[in-house]
C-alpha cells in the first residue's frame, strides 16, 4: 500500500509540473507576451524596453525555469491592474469559491445518494422514473441557463432570495443549487447503476437468504460496496465544480476565484489568470491524491497492487 501511495504521490508531482508548463505557455501562445501584457497603444520602443526588463528575450527554457522558481514560492508576478501580488489576490478569493463548491457538493451528495438508492431499490416504479427524468434533465441543462431561470423565478418574480453577492445563507442557496445540479444528476445515475449492480451480487442474496432484514442489506451490504465508484467520482466532480464556479460566480456576482479570473481575462491581467488557473488545477490534483488515499482504505484490494 505504501508503494502504491508513493507512486501516486510521484505521479501527482509530475502532473503539477505539467500544469506549470501549461500555465506558463498561456502567455506564450501568441509568441509575444510583451504585446499581450502592455496596453494596445504601447509604442514599439516601450514594448522592446519592457521585453528586456521582463527577460522575454531569453530562451524559452530559461524563462520557464524562472517562472517555475517563482511558481513554487507562489510568485506569479504582480497584477497589472491592482499592482499587488497576483497570487495574493487569488488566495483572497479562494474561501468564497470553496464555500460555493462545498455547498454545491453537499447538495449534490445529499440529494443524489438517497435518490440513487431509492431509485435502485424501487426499480421501475414511479419514484425511479421521476428521479431518472430529473437526472436526465439535470445533465442536459446548461449551468448558466439554470442560474438565470432561478434568478427569474426566485429573485425577480417571487422576490424570496437575493440574486447576487455573498453574505448569509440566503445568498448561498441559488448559486449552490445552480452549481450542484449537474453533479447531482451525475451522482444519482451512478449511485443507481452501482446499487443495481451490487444488489444482484451473490453476497447480497446470501445475506437475504440467511434472514438479514432489508434495511441492513441495503445500507450495509450493498451501499458500502457501491460507494467505491462514488468516492472516485467525487474527486473528479470537484473539477466540474471548480470549473462550473467560473460560470456560476459570474451569474451571481459571487466574489470568488472564477469571477476574478473572468474579469482578469477581460482586463488582460494575465498574472492573475495564470495564478487562478494554477491554483485551481493544483487543488484538483491534491484533492484527487487525497481521494486515492481514502480509496485504499475503502477497497483493500488496491493495497496489494
Amino acid at each position, binding site marked *: 500500500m505504501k508503494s502504491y501511495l508513493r507512486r501516486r504521490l510521484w505521479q501527482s508531482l509530475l502532473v503539477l509540473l505539467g500544469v506549470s508548463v501549461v500555465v506558463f505557455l498561456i502567455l506564450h501562445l501568441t509568441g509575444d507576451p510583451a504585446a499581450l501584457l502592455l496596453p494596445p497603444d504601447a509604442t514599439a520602443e516601450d514594448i522592446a524596453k519592457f521585453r528586456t526588463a521582463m527577460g522575454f528575450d531569453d530562451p524559452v527554457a530559461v524563462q520557464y525555469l524562472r517562472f517555475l522558481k517563482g511558481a513554487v514560492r507562489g510568485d506569479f508576478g504582480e497584477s497589472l491592474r491592482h499592482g499587488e501580488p497576483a497570487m495574493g489576490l487569488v488566495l483572497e478569493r479562494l474561501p468564497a469559491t470553496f464555500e460555493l463548491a462545498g455547498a454545491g457538493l453537499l447538495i449534490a451528495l445529499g440529494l443524489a445518494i438517497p435518490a440513487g438508492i431509492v431509485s435502485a431499490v424501487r426499480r*421501475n416504479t414511479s419514484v425511479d422514473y421521476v428521479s431518472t427524468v430529473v437526472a436526465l434533465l439535470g445533465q442536459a441543462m446548461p449551468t448558466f441557463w439554470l442560474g438565470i431561470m432561478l434568478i427569474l423565478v426566485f429573485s*425577480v418574480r417571487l422576490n424570496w432570495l437575493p440574486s447576487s453577492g455573498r453574505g448569509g445563507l440566503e445568498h448561498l442557496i441559488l448559486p449552490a443549487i445552480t452549481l450542484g445540479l449537474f453533479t447531482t444528476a451525475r451522482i444519482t445515475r451512478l449511485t443507481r447503476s452501482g446499487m443495481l449492480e451490487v444488489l444482484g451480487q451473490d453476497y447480497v442474496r446470501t445475506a437475504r437468504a440467511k434472514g438479514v432484514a432489508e434495511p441492513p442489506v441495503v445500507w450495509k451490504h450493498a451501499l458500502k460496496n457501491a460507494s467505491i465508484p462514488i468516492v472516485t467520482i467525487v474527486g473528479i466532480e470537484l473539477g466540474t465544480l471548480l470549473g462550473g464556479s467560473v460560470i456560476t460566480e459570474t451569474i451571481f456576482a459571487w466574489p470568488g476565484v472564477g469571477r476574478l479570473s473572468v474579469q482578469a481575462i477581460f482586463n488582460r491581467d494575465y498574472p492573475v489568470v495564470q495564478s487562478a488557473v494554477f491554483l485551481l488545477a493544483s487543488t484538483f490534483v491534491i484533492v484527487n491524491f487525497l481521494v486515492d488515499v481514502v480509496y485504499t482504505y475503502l477497497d483493500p484490494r488496491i493495497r496489494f497492487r
Partner: protein
Amino acid sequence: MAALPPSVAGEAVALATPPRSAAEREWVTLLRRLVRRRTALFGAIVVLGVVLAAALAPLVAPFDPLEQDIGQRLKEPGWQDAQGRVHPLGTDHLGRDILSRIVFGARIALVVGLAAVLISGVLGMLIGLLAGYFGGRVDDFLMRLADIQLAFPFILLAIAVIGVLGPSLRNIIIVIGVSSWVVYARVVRGEVLSIREREYVQAAIALGSQHWRVLRHHVLPNTFTPWLVVATLDMARVIVIESALSFLGLGVQPPTPTWGGMLADGRVYLSTAWWLATFPGLAILITVLGINLFGDGLRDTLDPRLKV
C-alpha cells in the same frame, strides 16, 4: 439509463427493401434495435430535427435573424406586427425575431460540436491506440499527459486561451477540440489493451506484420464502436461549452446569433422580458437532452459494458 421495455411502436417499423449484404443486415438490425428503445428514438428525432433546422435555416426561420426593428423591440411571444406577421417567440432588445435567431444559432452549435468532436476524437483515438498498443513508457507518458489535461477546470483553461488568442469560430473549435481528447484516449486504450491479447492480433504480430499494419487492420476497426458512443455523448458536452463561451462573450462574436450570446443579452432584460433568456436556454436543453438520449441508446445497443 435503464432501457425502457421494447416499444410496440418499434415493431411496426417495416423496412421497404429487404437488406442484401451481411454488413447491411447488421446495420439494419442495429437500427431496428435502436428504434425499439423509445427514449433513443425520441433522442434521434430531436437530433434530426435540430440538424434539419440548422441545415435549412433560411427556409425554416420566419424572419431574417439579423434584421433589426427598434420599433418592435422586446415584444412578447406570439406578437403580431403591422403586416400581420407573427413572432412566435417574441423579439429581442433590437427587435430581432427570437425564433429565427434560435434556428440560425443551431448552425454555430452544430458546426462547433461536429468539428471539435472530430478533432478531439481523432487525436484521442491516436493517443489511445499508441498508449494501449505499445504500453510501458509510452503508455505512462501519454496517461500522465491525460492527467495533466484533466487537472484543469476545462472552461477556465478554455477562456484563458481564447482570451489570449481572440474569439473566433476557428479558435473556439481548435481550443475545444485540442483539449477534449482524454475521454476518447482512455476508452480506446482500454479496448486496445484487450484486443492486443487476442489471438488474431498475436498471430499477425507473429507473422511479422509491421506495427502500423496491425494497428490499422486489426486494432483500429475494433475500437470504432466505443469511440462512436463517446463521440456522440461528447457532442452534447461540446455544445454546452460552446454556449458557455458565447455566454461569457468569448464565443462567435455578434451579430452572428449564438444560443449563449442570446442568453447573455436576455440576462440584462430579465425583469422586463423573460422570453429573451428562456427560449435560447430551452433550445440548448432540448438539443443536449436529445443527443444524450440517443447516445445512451447507442451505448446500450452497441456496447452495454461501456462506462461513459
